C-alpha cells in the first residue's frame, strides 16, 4: 500500500467516524446545543467524504449551508427547550452512549433532582409497548423533561435492524460495476453549464421553491400574524419560557453597565427572559441608510 493510499484510508476513517459519531451524538446527547453541534459535525464529516469523492464544490456547499443553517436552528432549539444546556439532565442516570456524548456537561455533586427525574424515567421505560398513554405525561405537564418518546427501545431496535440489514446486504453484494475514469477538475464550470442548459427548469423551479419557502415562513412566523396589538402582546408574553432557570443575575454584570449603554442592551443581542414583556422595536429605515452613505 503506497503512502497516498494509506493517507486516503486515514482520511476516510476519520471522516466516517466523525459523520457517524456526530449523528449518534445528535440523537443521544442531553444538551440541545450539543446535539445541534453534533449534527453539524456529522454534516461536515459527510462534506469531507464528498471532497474525498472529488465533489469538492458540493462538499463546501454543504459546509456553508449547514454551518449557517444549524447555528440558526440551534437558536430555535434553545428557545423551544426547557434545559438547553443539558446541565440538569446530565446528572440523571443515562445509558452508556448518552453518558459518553454528554461528557463534560455537568459536575454538580448534589443529586437532589434525581428522585423526581427517575420517576419520569421509569414511566418512560415501562411505556415501551407501543400505544403511549397521554395521561401519563399529561398529568405532569411541562415537568416532563425527558427528550425521548416511550418507544425509544423499539426505535433503537428498528434502527439497528435497518442499519445492520443494509450493511449486511452491502457486504453480500460487494461487486458494483465501477469505472476508473477521473472527473473533470473544473466542477464549478461543469455544474454551471448543466444548470444553464439541461437543468434550467430545475434551477428556476428551485428558485420558485425557495420563494414559496420564504412566503410560507414569513406568513407563519411574522410578528404581524396577530389580530391586533393587544393579542400580539398577549402572545409575546406567553412566548416567554415558563421559568427562567437562573433567577439571580450576577450583581457585577449590571453594575458596570454605563447608563447610556442600557438602551443598547435591550435592542441588541439576545433578550433575557427576565427582561419580560415585548422589547422595544426599532424605527425603520433612515438611520441605517445614512450610516451606509458615510461608510462608502
Amino acid at each position, binding site marked *: 500500500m503506497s503512502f497516498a493510499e494509506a493517507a486516503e484510508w486515514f482520511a476516510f476513517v476519520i471522516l466516517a467516524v466523525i459523520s457517524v459519531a456526530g449523528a449518534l451524538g445528535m440523537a443521544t446527547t442531553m*444538551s440541545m*446545543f*450539543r446535539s445541534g*453541534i453534533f449534527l*453539524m459535525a456529522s454534516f461536515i464529516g459527510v462534506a469531507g467524504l464528498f471532497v474525498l469523492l472529488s465533489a*469538492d*464544490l458540493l462538499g*463546501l*456547499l454543504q*459546509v*456553508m449551508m449547514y*454551518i*449557517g443553517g444549524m*447555528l*440558526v436552528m*440551534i*437558536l430555535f432549539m434553545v428557545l423551544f427547550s426547557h434545559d438547553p*444546556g443539558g*446541565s440538569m439532565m446530565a446528572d440523571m442516570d443515562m445509558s452508556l452512549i448518552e453518558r459518553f456524548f454528554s*461528557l*463534560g*456537561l*455537568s*459536575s*454538580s455533586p448534589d443529586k437532589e433532582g434525581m428522585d423526581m427525574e427517575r420517576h419520569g424515567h421509569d414511566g418512560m421505560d415501562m411505556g415501551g409497548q407501543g400505544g403511549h398513554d397521554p395521561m401519563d405525561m399529561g398529568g405532569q405537564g411541562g415537568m416532563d423533561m425527558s427528550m425521548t418518546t416511550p418507544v425509544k427501545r423499539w426505535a433503537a431496535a428498528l434502527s439497528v435492524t435497518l442499519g445492520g440489514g443494509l450493511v449486511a446486504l452491502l457486504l453480500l453484494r460487494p461487486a458494483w460495476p465501477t469505472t476508473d475514469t477521473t472527473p473533470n*477538475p*473544473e*466542477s*464549478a464550470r461543469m455544474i454551471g453549464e448543466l444548470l444553464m442548459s439541461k437543468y434550467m427548469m430545475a434551477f428556476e423551479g428551485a428558485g420558485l421553491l425557495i420563494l414559496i419557502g420564504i412566503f410560507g415562513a414569513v406568513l407563519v412566523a411574522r410578528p404581524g400574524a396577530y389580530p391586533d396589538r393587544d393579542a400580539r402582546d398577549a402572545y409575546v408574553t406567553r412566548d416567554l419560557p415558563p421559568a427562567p432557570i*437562573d433567577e439571580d*443575575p*450576577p450583581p457585577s*454584570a449590571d453594575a*458596570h*453597565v*454605563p447608563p447610556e*449603554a442600557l438602551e*443598547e*442592551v435591550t*435592542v*441588541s*443581542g*439576545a433578550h*433575557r427572559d427576565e427582561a419580560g414583556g415585548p422589547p422595544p422595536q*426599532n424605527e*425603520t*429605515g433612515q*438611520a*441605517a*441608510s445614512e*450610516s*451606509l452613505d*458615510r*461608510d*462608502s
Partner: protein
Amino acid sequence: MELTLRALGVLAALGLAALLTHFFEPAALSDAQERGPATPAGARGPVELAPNPDRWMHPAGPVTALLGVLFALIVIPYGPDLVPRDLGIGVFYFIVVVDFVVLGLSLGGWGANTRNSVDVYYRATAQLVAYVVPLGLAYIGAIMMARSLSTVSIVDAQAGMWFVVLQPIGFALYLVTGLMQAYRPPFVEPFAAFIEHGVYGASFAWQALLWRLALSSLLFLVAAMGAVLYLGGWRGPLLPGPVWMLLKTFGLMAIMVWGGSRVPLLSTGRMLELSWKVLTPIGLANVLVVGALILLGVGPS
C-alpha cells in the same frame, strides 16, 4: 517534502499576518470609542468563570476559529506562483471556511456558560445572518468578470484594469460587509465593552491568545481578499509581487478600519436592517449591472 513546506508557509503567513495586523490596527483605530477584537489585554476585566462550563466545547471554540483562518490562508496569493495552494474553487472555499470563525465564537460563547459569553453566540449568529448574503453578492460581481473561482485567475483577469474601477458599487459593498465579517467597528456587537468584550471575558489566557491570533488574522484575510477581488492582488509596477500584495492589503485595511471607526456604532437590530433592506437590494442590483456591463463587452476578454 513539498507539502510540508507549503504547510510551513501557511503557518509563517499566519504568524506574519497576525503580528503585522496586531501592531497596525490600533494605529488606525486610535480614537475609536469601541475597539472590538483589538481590545488590548490590559483593558479587560477579570476572567468570568461559570460553575459548570461545557468542558469540551469551551476550549474547542478558539481552536475552531484558528483552524478556520488557517484554512482560509491557503488560497491567498502573494505572487503568480507564490500561493500555498491554488484551489480551483478558491473564492468559494474562502467564504466557506471563514464561517468556521463564527462557529468557533458560538462554541466558545455558549460553552463558557456565563451570561455575557452566551450573549456572544446570539450576536455572532445575528452577524452571520446579516453578512453572508451581501458579502456573497459582492464576490459574485468579481467572479462574473473573471469567469473563474480561483484566486489566481481572478488576479490575472485584472491585468488590464482593476475591478474597483469597473465595479465601484461592489467594492463599496465589500468594504461594509467586510467590516461585518471581521467584527470591526461599527459592527462590534459580539465584542462590545458592556458584555466584557465577549469571548475574551470568559477565556483563560491561552484561549484569549488563540482568539487574538484568529481575529487579527481575520481582519488581514478580509483585507487581503478585498485586494485580490478588487485591487489587482500582487499586480503593480516596479516592486515585486508580495510587496504590492501587502501594500494593498494594509492600505485597504487602513481605509476600512479608519472609516469604520468614524461611524456611530450600530446595534444588532440596526445592522440586520442595514443588511437586508439596503445592502442586499444593492447587491442584487450590482449583479444585474455587472451582467449588463459584461454583455456590453466591458471587462477582460
